[in-house]
């Protein structure tokens, strides 16, 4: 049995009248969640350090006039926090109105419709399109520009500037390829100023797309992805390499239209690389090898059975070993196999064939 020794000091604070013992260094939001007090958030994402940009999670701390953001304010001993008041409700509602002031409100054509965090929070704060009359602002049309990569599209009008994408690129991918740049209402997500010799550090992993609450970053592949409610999600393991990331194939009408992940599942905890996230088009490719083929005397590939094909391979191996020795055979394995498969493969080449000529594509 393991004994967990609590080495961290605790702080005692009060949130909406409830006493909370929180580990030192915890934020007000974390402390509140621990006792089941819900504070609405938008830019906050559990996999990332607090951002504090949307200002939806404002709370009142006794003794400080200005509301503090719960996501990035440290819980301190003796603090008295109120998460609900008329003033806070109004502030949050106004802030969400501001966010929506330049976000397109015709939700129905949006693929995120029904699975959109902004939609949810606007609904919670009872905001409808006709609430925006006095907030309408003349944001200039943004030029439709390529967002660093041929795989990802960025829609500045949809973007709520939460900053999650910037954080995930920096903290999870460790790249810092994108940044948020103003001025003011014209702010948008842009490639970060790298050094002049490498203008973009983006590798199209799509992590930014994963954390985007509103589909402002969208993959360019396919189109017609179906609505969240008609999508069937099949949990599986990525076939690209031995890491074995968990992912969900999004299937609409029997066709894979995209890949999503669950933040809590698998070794990857929601993260994927470019291949795992976008490399699914091959599934329905007509070029895909799905049956064994043997080249006939005329040099054409002919469909055959597995038994025939494998017998032929075994016979040719034996012939080659008999005529030229085992070193005439070399094995090259793939990174798409698991560790175990690769292990078996090299055992096969070394022991069954008798050759040490074995290698792996990831080493090339």
């Amino acid at each position, binding site marked *: 049995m393991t004994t967990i020794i609590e080495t961290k000091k605790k702080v005692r604070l009060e949130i909406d009248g409830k006493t909370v013992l929180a580990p030192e260094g915890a934020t007000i939001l974390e402390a509140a969640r621990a006792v089941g007090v819900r504070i609405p958030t938008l830019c906050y994402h559990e996999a990332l350090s607090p951002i*504090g*940009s*949307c*200002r939806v999670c*404002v709370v009142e*701390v006794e003794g*400080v*006039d*200005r*509301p*503090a*953001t719960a996501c990035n*304010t*440290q819980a*301190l001993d003796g603090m008295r926090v109120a998460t609900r008041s008329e003033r806070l409700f*109004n*502030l949050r509602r*106004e*802030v969400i109105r*501001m*966010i929506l*002031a*330049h976000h397109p409100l015709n939700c129905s054509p949006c693929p995120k419709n029904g699975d959109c965090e902004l939609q949810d929070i606007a609904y919670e704060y009872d905001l409808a399109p006709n609430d925006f009359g*006095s*907030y309408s*602002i*003349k*944001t200039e049309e943004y030029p439709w520009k390529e967002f660093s990569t041929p795989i990802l599209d960025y829609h500045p009008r949809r973007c709520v*500037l939460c*900053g999650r994408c*910037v954080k995930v690129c*920096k903290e999870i991918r460790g790249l*810092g390829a994108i*940044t*948020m*740049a*103003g*001025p*003011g*209402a*014209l*702010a*948008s997500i842009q490639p*970060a*100023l*790298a*050094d002049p*010799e490498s203008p973009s550090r983006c590798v199209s992993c799509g992590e930014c797309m994963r954390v985007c609450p509103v589909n402002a970053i969208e993959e360019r592949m396919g189109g017609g992805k179906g609505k969240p409610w008609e999508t069937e999600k099949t949990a599986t393991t990525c076939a690209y390499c031995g890491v074995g990331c968990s992912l969900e194939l999004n299937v609409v009408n029997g066709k894979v239209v995209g890949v999503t992940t669950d933040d809590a599942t698998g070794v990857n905890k929601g993260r994927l690389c470019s291949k795992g996230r976008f490399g699914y088009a091959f599934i329905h490719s007509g070029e895909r090898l799905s049956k064994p083929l043997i080249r006939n005397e005329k040099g054409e590939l002919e469909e055959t059975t597995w038994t025939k094909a494998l017998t032929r391979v075994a016979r040719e191996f034996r012939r080659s070993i008999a005529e030229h020795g085992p070193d005439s055979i070399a094995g090259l394995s793939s990174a798409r196999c698991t560790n175990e498969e690769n292990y078996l493969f090299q055992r096969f080449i070394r022991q069954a064939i008798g050759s040490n000529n074995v290698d792996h594509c990831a080493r090339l």
Partner: protein
Amino acid sequence: MAKVILGSWRDDVTDNRGLKKSAIPEAFKGLKEFESGNDILAFMGWDGFFLFDRDAPVVDMARAYVEKAQEESCGYCTPCRVGTKVVAEKLAALADGHGRREDIDAIRSMAAVIRDASMCELGHTSMTALLKMMELAPEAFEEAVAGRAPVKRGNYRAMATAPCIEACPAHLDIPEYVDAIRSGNYYESLAIIGRKNPLAGVCGRVCVRPCEFVCRREELDEAISIKHLKRFVNDQIVSYVSARSKPLEEIPSASGKKAAIIGAGPCGLTAAFYLKRKGHEVHIFEDLREPGGMSAVGIPDYRLPRDVISSEVRRISEIGVKFHYGKRLGRDLSLSQLETEYDSVLISVGAHGSKSVGMEGEDANSEGYVAGVTFLRDLNLLHHIGEFKPPEGTRVVVVGGGNVAMDCARSAVRLGYSKVSVVYRRTQKEMPADHEEIEGAMEEGVEFLFLTHPVRIDAEAGKVKGITCVKMDLGEPDASGRRRPVEVKGSDFFIECDIVIPAIGQSSDFSFLSDGSGIETTKWGTIAVDDNTMMTGRDRVFAGGDCVSGPAALIDAMGHGLRVAHCMDQRMRGEKMSMPEAERMFRLLKTMSLPQAPVNRLGNKARCRLEMRPARERTSDFVEIERGLKPDEAIREAERCLRCYRIALFATEE
């Protein structure tokens, strides 16, 4: 003097419209004109506003102010990004004469949201003046609603500033580059510094950091380590770029004009950098065999390694600035010769001479008497090539309490003298040196004799044998606000020593100036320049740095370099010379010296401490003693910045 008609600062209202209220008349001394012949009509700031003229265009001014806030908004948080845009558009509608009654209420409620929910001080303060104006002068807004009187339009000078930006002599945009570090964009951060400061690595090590002394984070916990952040971002990029060793691209000299700069110190280098970027051909003439001026020969390597200076100078020369070493004005060059060959000349020769203490028996020729600047210069030029011959003896007394005195004392420890003492006439509290330097010296075993004033050098046969001092007591405060030391009668005592290093002040050598040159010097032994243009009495000849200000900090000289380069550029292009507008506004703000609002936020994040090499290890060599911040420490430190951005706006007559 500008008299306030109506104004408010931190809810302290002054109202002199008619006799309705009997508020005390308030006025700003020294504030009247923006520039000569252009009166200031009104001011809008972060804690209120002042109208100095009955006809000040209230509504239009508010529009200009909020538009500036929107322009300066970084776009990070929602209320400031969107809210200021909405308010600006509504104010513009009012100013255009098609505003509606309900717009006024909408502005008021939106302004309150921006003030309460924004992330940084820009949002917290950008609505204060507007809300107060709507409260104290509601009629101006009512009248603006369509159908009433047309709205007066005005002329405005607006900028975003912050206490740290105002305190920095070069007015670096500190919150912006700190913010770039926070988001991990080191290259961008260095580019922001590089707009005004070509010596980030030097400043990041030895700047006296006026910015940190006004940092408002101090009210919550501790000021942020601006200096260390600058060093961090410089070292990150420099090690990255030099690893690939690609030189910068040369900037072509497109203007066809040539500038000569005398002295490759901080002022000269900064000016050269900016003049080059403006497209001029720039030549620097330097007496010594290496660049950096006082930063190279006045600061020992353990604080500022010489390769830091050389790598920054290399970048300046890569963009095309030409360096000529071993050329001294008055010996190898003459001013008239330079004037014929160049379109403008900058004198930035620094202050490399030493002031004497005024002790009895003080003779520069005595063996064992070495001026602080001379000691440091010889050490810096010769020690790394093994040719430095330290003055002979075992006991050293350094006179003075500034950074130069600390540099001398700590260098002396490193040279292996058995006892090093510092003699200072006031107490530790009044010492002008950085407290890190004083503490560092104490750790290294330097003895401090406070409230001690040297009165006589005792020499035998031209060789120093000791120094006689008297004890002092602190009396009444003097002009500098420090308590004046008074001699305690009969308290004389003798310190036996072989070497005396006076480090109480520096002076410039102007032997190159001939009579009738038109260049005047002041009674403080500095070159007289026009405060507005930094030009000397002689056309096309400018001056800056220590030789104008008297011995000052590195960043002061760099600030001079920026200002003088601005005017040299104007002069060479044949434009009217004037101080940069921002500089003028910074000065006006200083004149107003408005009281600061307390920081009403939550703190509790201590500043990152730098790791130092232990005293025992570091006293035997001149290797840098401070380790830089690590990336995670730097980001944590950058996150402590409150971003005290605020908008200042002057409404002017023209």
